């Protein structure tokens, strides 16, 4: 018997789930796909006294309201790959989600679970940050929206407070023509990445009108590469030429060195992945126009 003992609750409404979470505070935890929580419980790294199973809640929809796509917390990774709204507005997200784990993991793991777990190189936190996303969080006191750039605070650390749970992520729909790409490096395909990069380019008449660039692997949480974004704005899709700015951006990083990759290797890798994602996004933009 691997995990420590706990009490199991399966609420069928959000209100009930939130009142249970409020009641248990730090002793309670939601369980969604279980793909990160149960390994931790089996290793006894997590020992919740109460598990609140949220799989019965109606948080599985992806829909658009005005200029925002709202993705429910219980949307399984795999569902992102088949959804027409996501395909149309967030191609980099589709490419990123394809890199998560393996088919069985993608069928069962959820968006909310990945965002709350907040592994430093998990794809979905990076992708939410890349798309200027907001995380919608609920508790028995009501709802609040937290910008993705503020939500992910460090390795396995988020802005979630006891009694709160994620109900959705909201991504603003890009205006005009856009292209995106995602690149990562893992030791084996499907493993957690050593580093990753995503790029979204708005474009018009062969020029970049607005660039978003995000990367992981440099710090305990993903980050936006603002200087690279600024350098790309107005650049020619056929030769964006941001090499010097990317090199400068890498100098500002202080990535960790570990058994998987030394700090200099990691820095070089992030530069290479940003460059590859940027080049791919530019090519896609040119092909589409």
């Amino acid at each position: 018997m691997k995990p420590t003992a706990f009490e199991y609750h399966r609420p069928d409404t959000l209100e009930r789930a939130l009142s249970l979470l409020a009641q248990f505070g730090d002793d309670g935890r939601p369980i969604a796909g279980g793909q990160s929580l149960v390994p931790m419980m089996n290793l006894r790294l997590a020992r919740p006294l109460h598990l609140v199973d949220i799989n019965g809640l109606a948080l599985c929809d992806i829909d658009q309201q005005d200029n925002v796509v709202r993705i429910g917390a219980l949307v399984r990774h795999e569902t992102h790959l088949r959804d027409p709204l996501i395909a149309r507005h967030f191609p980099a997200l589709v490419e990123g989600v394809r890199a998560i784990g393996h088919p069985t993991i993608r069928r069962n793991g959820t968006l909310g679970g990945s965002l709350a777990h907040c592994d430093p190189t998990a794809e979905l936190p990076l992708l939410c940050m890349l798309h200027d996303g907001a995380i919608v969080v609920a508790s028995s006191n009501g709802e609040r929206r937290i910008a993705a750039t503020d939500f992910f605070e460090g390795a396995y650390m988020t802005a979630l407070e006891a009694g709160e749970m994620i109900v959705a992520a909201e991504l603003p729909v890009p205006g005009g023509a856009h292209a995106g790409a995602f690149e990562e490096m893992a030791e084996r395909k499907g493993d957690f990445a050593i580093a990753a990069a995503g790029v979204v380019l708005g474009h018009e008449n062969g020029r970049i009108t607005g660039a978003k660039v995000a990367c992981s692997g440099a710090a305990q949480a993903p980050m936006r590469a603002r200087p690279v974004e600024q350098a790309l704005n107005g650049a020619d899709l056929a030769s964006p030429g941001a090499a010097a700015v990317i090199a400068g951006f890498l100098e500002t990083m202080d990535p960790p060195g570990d058994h998987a990759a030394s700090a200099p290797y990691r820095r070089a890798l992030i530069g290479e992945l940003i460059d590859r994602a940027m080049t791919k996004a530019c090519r896609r933009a040119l092909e589409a126009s």
Partner: protein
Amino acid sequence: MITITLEVNDVSRRVQVEPRRLLADVLREQFGLSGVHIGCAQGACGCCTVHVEGTPRLSCLTFAVQCDGKAIKTIESVGGSKAEHMLQTAFRTEHGLQCGYCTPGFIMTLMPFVEQMTGERRMPDEAEIREAMSGNICRCTGYHGIVAAVRKAIADSLEDTERP
């Protein structure tokens, strides 16, 4: 203890479980289904894959209480006592197994893939087959024989469904 009802391989049964009992352990110990193998208990090896409501799921990352009222299939439901499902036969002829520890997990993971490809009437390329089995680890036979077995199972069932 909580009383739950599991429909395992088409038979419904009520069992008493502690919430912390993993589905893998309950299937092995309370249902006597020793074909559910436990490898890593962290989701990394795929050995314990079963179907919950028709979808592959790692039974070491699932609490049995979460499956109350659900239909579960294990390797014991596949191919009869002689293991004659097309994919099992192909594993045998293509040298897809040696010690057999990982085999139930591979079969349960790959069955829906073989069915999907047969439904789409196409032979996947090597990369697609390897992606489909990427969540399962084999530590003795190696993967070439398993890839060949998947290809053979799909070829056989395509041929089978072509016959008038």
